């Protein structure tokens, strides 16, 4: 049973560029959430996708956008990169049918460095 996978593992970009990160959820899961973790901090919620729509959103600007595909995989896009976007980006998956008693599982993350 494959867990949550993310790609790429590492990425280096320059200011102003755009980046796309990818996530495949755990088998049987249909809900994907994205988090940003700055160095020395806890993860911060960016947004959540379910049925190919953004269902919840945290306090992040519109430069951060996402997409969910029919196979439940998801992409996170960040436009006009800033130095402050350098962080570990984590994807978590869960199953909508299990409102309680099921946990969110996290992928290994993508480390983004903006120069």
């Amino acid at each position: 049973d494959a867990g949550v996978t993310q790609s790429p593992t590492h990425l280096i970009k320059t200011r102003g560029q755009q980046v796309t990160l990818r996530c495949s959820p755990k088998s049987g899961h249909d809900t994907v959430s994205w988090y940003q973790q700055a160095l020395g901090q806890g993860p911060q919620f960016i947004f959540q996708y379910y049925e190919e729509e953004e269902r919840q959103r945290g306090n992040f600007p519109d430069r951060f956008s996402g997409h969910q595909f029919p196979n439940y995989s998801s992409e996170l896009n960040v436009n006009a990169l800033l130095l402050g976007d350098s962080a570990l980006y984590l994807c978590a998956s869960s199953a909508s049918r299990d409102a309680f008693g099921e946990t969110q599982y996290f992928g290994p993350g993508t480390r983004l460095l903006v120069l």
Partner: protein
Amino acid sequence: GIQVEQSPPDLILQEGANSTLRCNFSDSVNNLQWFHQNPWGQLINLFYIPSGTKQNGRLSATTVATERYSLLYISSSQTTDSGVYFCAVGRAGANSKLTFGKGITLSVRP
């Protein structure tokens, strides 16, 4: 939004010692998870425990939802227990967005 406070921020133990990590939260929740983040950044699920007590080997956790706190107990600590421990809470079940604390950095010395 919900505030999550974890204490102590740093903890240094000798191998074999026991420890208690605390998580306080500011509002009622129905999702609470404890994670261990390894040096490579992977968040490893320890417990899903919005209320009650659970045990898994040397680890156990208790959440008292009415008093808005959770405790993670580590017994007979090992060097492999080192890392950052996060408490995360949510208000809409398993699919809710999680609000994380700042984490507790645990160092276990041989």
